[in-house]
């Protein structure tokens, strides 16, 4: 039950001035379920070129935390269930469906027959059991903690998998939809784990091509893909282009089809007859974390005061160029159980004054705001906050550390205020709420040391409540409590931005950040 620490910020984010995307985004690989209608008849073939800020690190879906890797292996490795297009629910992918026992402790999952790996062999329940067990095995170093509620997985027949739980667990199907539970051949087809992931084999629309580290990674269409007629593309090439201007120019010049991380600042200018500047609803929340282990942030009045000083509209304007919205809640609009009416603190001079006068430091103080270096958006945000707090005699020094050091400083609670962001990996709020409010969740409540008995209790209850209405009520209360206690100052919800060449069709990004490419096609 105890959740392991997840990385909070983009590890080793290289994208200079790129939008801060959380490393924890992800989800299930999609099938041919594009909801959007996109004119024209799909054209077969073509190579889709994606310009990305940094290279993937590893194809190991159970040990890898960075988005670039995840978005890549998701094209090859598919889990049993996947996220719906709105990101709030799940839908069967490799599974046909499932049944839940009355005690909510046993899930029986039926598999679609005839699904083949890219190697040509058929996928069976043994492969599924191996894959889930393998994930669970690496609970301490990888994503396996997500399977914490699973007691046992069995494969009673070729197309049936039975999952037994330790206790009732609402997010199970969402958990199984995570990429780390994607199905790989039993026993890695006889290879070692390392060898297997050098050229992974899965059931996805694309299969392994070649990888020149630091230069490009190429996937080619899987001829054995179980959904006939897909994928449309012949291949996908992920090119590493660290400079955001260069990425933009490459898409404009036709050398790349998709810019994975366009700058918000020039986002509008990306759009032209040849390129579409596209935003997709996300589950990203950007926030200020207060380290309650350091004075005076243990004081709720200080946190509330600062929250009331920050002009979120300005940040949305200066950082997102009005592409996002000010945040009001711990949960994001794209996440189930988001409460629109949560009374999150917004800019309010009177409240700020009142809270300051009630606080331990009514005359102001000096502090620092930690941000990762090389992140233009966070730098801008930090400067606005710095300027917002100044009239209240709170002198903020902006402290920049390289991404890894920044990450370490947060983990070790060696900061005072810090800018961070979160994106969901599964279509269930629990992943984030446990991380953010439960000190026992392993992350000291998003590294704030926030510890509210009420919040902890609400979160635990919600985890084990399967009934959606009851869960909703619990999460509403949790959102209200955190809005009042302000362990985090919620800043904004940002959509995902992509620069997409206009001859690319049906390119969709889910709120969890992943983009299935099976039904994407390129016109001439």
């Amino acid at each position, binding site marked *: 039950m105890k959740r392991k*620490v*997840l*990385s909070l910020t983009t*590890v*080793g*984010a*290289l994208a200079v001035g790129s939008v801060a995307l959380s490393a924890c985004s992800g989800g299930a690989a999609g099938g041919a379920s594009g909801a959007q209608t996109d004119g024209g008849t799909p054209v077969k073939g073509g190579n889709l070129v994606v*310009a990305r800020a*940094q*290279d993937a*690190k*590893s194809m190991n879906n159970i040990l890898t*935390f960075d988005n670039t890797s995840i978005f890549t292996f998701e094209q090859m490795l598919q889990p049993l269930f996947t996220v719906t297009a709105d990101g709030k629910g799940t839908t069967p992918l490799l599974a046909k469906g499932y049944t839940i026992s009355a005690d909510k402790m046993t899930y029986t999952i039926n598999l679609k027959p005839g699904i083949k790996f890219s190697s040509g062999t058929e996928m069976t329940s043994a492969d599924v059991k191996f894959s889930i067990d393998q994930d669970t095995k690496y609970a*301490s*170093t990888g994503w396996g903690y997500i399977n914490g509620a699973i007691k046992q997985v069995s494969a009673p027949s070729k197309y049936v998998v039975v999952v037994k739980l330790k206790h009732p667990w609402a997010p199970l199907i969402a958990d199984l939809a995570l990429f780390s539970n994607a199905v790989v051949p039993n026993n890695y087809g006889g290879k070692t784990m390392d060898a297997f992931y050098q050229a992974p084999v899965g059931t996805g629309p694309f299969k392994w091509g070649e990888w*020149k*580290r*630091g*230069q490009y990674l190429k996937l080619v269409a899987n001829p054995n893909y179980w959904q006939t007629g897909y994928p449309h593309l012949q291949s996908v090439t992920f*090119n*590493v*282009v*660290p*400079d955001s*201007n*260069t990425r933009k*120019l*490459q898409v*404009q*010049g036709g*050398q790349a089809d998709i810019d994975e991380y366009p700058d918000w600042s020039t986002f509008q200018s990306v759009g032209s007859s040849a390129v579409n500047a596209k935003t997709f609803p996300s589950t990203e929340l950007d926030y200020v974390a207060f380290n309650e282990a350091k004075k005076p942030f243990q004081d709720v009045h200080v946190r509330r005061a600062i929250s009331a000083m920050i002009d979120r509209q300005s940040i949305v304007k200066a950082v997102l160029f009005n592409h996002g919205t000010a945040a009001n809640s711990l949960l994001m609009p794209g996440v189930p159980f988001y409460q629109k009416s949560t009374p999150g603190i917004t800019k309010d001079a009177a409240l700020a004054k009142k809270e300051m006068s009630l606080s331990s430091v009514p005359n102001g103080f000096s502090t620092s705001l930690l941000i990762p270096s*090389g992140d233009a958006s966070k730098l801008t945000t930090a400067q606005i906050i710095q300027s917002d707090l100044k009239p209240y005699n709170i002198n903020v020094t902006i402290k920049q550390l*390289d*991404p*890894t*050091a920044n*990450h*370490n400083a947060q*983990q070790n609670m060696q900061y005072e205020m810090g800018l961070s962001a979160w994106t969901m990996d599964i279509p269930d709020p629990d992943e984030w709420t446990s991380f953010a409010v439960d000190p026992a969740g392993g992350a000291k409540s998003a590294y704030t040391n926030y510890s509210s008995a009420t919040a902890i209790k609400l979160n635990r209850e919600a985890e084990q409540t399967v009934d959606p209405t009851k869960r909703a009520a619990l999460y509403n209360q949790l959102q209200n409590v955190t809005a009042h206690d302000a362990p985090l100052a919620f800043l904004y919800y940002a959509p995902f931005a992509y620069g997409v060449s206009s001859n690319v069709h049906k390119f969709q990004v889910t709120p969890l950040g992943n983009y299935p490419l099976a039904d994407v096609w390129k016109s001439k």
Partner: protein
Amino acid sequence: MLGRLKFVPMRILQAVPVAFGVTVVVFLLVHLIPGNPAESILGAQATPARVAALSKQMGLDESLPQQYLHFLSNLAHGNLGQSYTYQTSVLSLVLQRVPVTLTLVLYSVVLMLIISVPLSAWAASRPGGARDHAVRVVPLVGLGMPQFWVGVMLLLVFAVGFKWFPVGGYGQTFSQHLWYLFLPALTLAISVSPVIIRSLRSSMLNVLESDYVATARSKGAGGWSLFSGHVLRNAVIPAVSIVGVNVGYLVGGTLVIEQVFAIPGLGSLLIGSIQARDFPSVQAVALFVAVFVVVVGVLTDIVYTLLDPRVDLTRRIEV
């Protein structure tokens, strides 16, 4: 001719202590970083027990000199360690990228010469004149422009505007490499040319005012025959050492340029590795770059010797 190259083994021998010094600096570079490298490597998965285990595995519990000796002996076996980010041998990673950066640097040296030689000759032909002032001042503008800025501007004009060149990347074949690397090499060349033009100009002036050019004139030489036969070769000699020295600067420039132009060379590997705290990669790149610069130093001396018959580095008697 070959007799004068007898100094080469000795010169290489001289480079050995420098190479050792380089390893010390490279070693210290990583070990001076505050905090435990193991902690940085483990990142999200750092627990005290794991940190301790990894520290032991990495030999971090040994004394610094011991660690250095380990580092050296690994180095001697061609073992530069595993990249934390890519989970592969650093050596193979680096070797993959060496030719890229090497091509880029050589390319920019060629472009630099193509830019500098005619311009400096043109300026030196009328010292103090308008063209001289123009050639002396205009390149200074290049000194004050950040490389990444120049790079993006070149991309904007020649790649996006005229579509003559691709927007970054490296290409597959050699001819593609030359096409892809033209703008980045040009950016580098622009940033170094001011220095080269100035020194070439002054060495050409020195040569033009020298007695032996007067002698050549007194033999009726003039125009191209004077320039090619007497001026260029003598003016190039000091330029060789200036180019040699500036190769280090060019290599430094690749850090930024490779970033801008999405070139998979040593520079982008280094920046990426530094930001990811991938220490073995940082060490390996720094080591390769430094050794490269040292080798260039030796080569510069050899070329210098071949060009200038007066230099005899085997003899060092001071009278």
